[in-house]
């Protein structure tokens, strides 16, 4: 049995070897394991694996920063980005309040959530959150296995 060494780096190449009967399924799994490729065999006998195709050093880091800047940012990310960038001002003006953000602007603020919901009834899909008075404590042991920082 001869296996092209490049196949050990390419899961699809390995699987192709099985399709022509050149190596056994056990050998395929062994190769996947040696290649650090995670796999799973379903009860139906399907082989599932995942891998990434990476072109390392595609561009220098400086150019990557430029290219990433030009990438469209999903709206949901954009809202958090705006909140993050403006958190100091928001905490100064709205500590202890519920706020609603729409189009990069705080469009409503209230002490209680029902009051906020009344104020924002005219808007479609605003982003809401609560701005605590106290400083954020980065300790996430409150529930369900979130790691403690």
């Amino acid at each position, binding site marked *: 049995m001869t296996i092209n060494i490049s196949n050990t780096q390419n899961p*699809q190449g390995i*699987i192709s070897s*099985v*399709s022509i009967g050149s190596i056994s399924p056990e050998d395929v799994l062994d190769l996947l394991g040696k290649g650090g490729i995670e796999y799973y065999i379903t009860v139906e006998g399907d*082989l599932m694996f*995942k891998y*990434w195709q990476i072109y390392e050093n595609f561009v220098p880091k400086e150019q990557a920063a430029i290219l990433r800047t030009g990438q469209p940012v*999903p709206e*949901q*990310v954009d*809202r*958090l980005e705006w*909140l*993050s960038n403006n*958190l*100091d001002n*928001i*905490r100064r003006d709205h500590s202890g309040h519920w706020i609603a953000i729409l189009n990069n602007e705080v469009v409503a603020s209230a002490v209680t*959530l*029902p009051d906020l*919901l009344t104020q*924002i*009834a005219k808007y*479609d*899909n*605003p*982003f*809401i*959150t*609560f*701005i*605590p008075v106290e400083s*954020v*404590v*980065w300790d996430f*042991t*409150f*529930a*369900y*296995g*979130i*790691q*403690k*920082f």
Partner: protein
Amino acid sequence: LLMVSKNFEQTIPFREIRDSSGNPIFDVNGNPIWLPLVTVTIIAPIGSRISLSLYFDTGASVTTLRSEFYPLLGLRSWNEGVRRQTSTGSDTIDVYQYTISMEVFGKTIECPIYLNNRMPAHPFFSGLLGRETIYKEFGFGFWEKIHELYVTPNP
């Protein structure tokens, strides 16, 4: 052999947490903190849509909101649902279960949700996005090194 490729249609970048001076905040191991935060849209019983940020938590069995969000679900109090018990890091607490309509990763789903009165407030997220229903509706990939979460609505 028939080989099927699974593609992830959406990329959710993690959020790096910084202090008020713009400097990264570090964990106990000295690594910057990156959070997998997902914005979901809750469809209130009256039909209005409200967006929230949730922490994508693979350790959470059920999606969970802080108890203060009960008005958003059209409830009169946070603890009028089905009482459940759940384990926290060091304790077992009562939470209350409801079912909500939620838009997430481009799909509208019916999803169980817990209200929890022991969860502290945080400006960047209002609760946890848990496994129940979510894992059946979507496929996920993590790439921790570059701080991205990948999602497909066609697992």
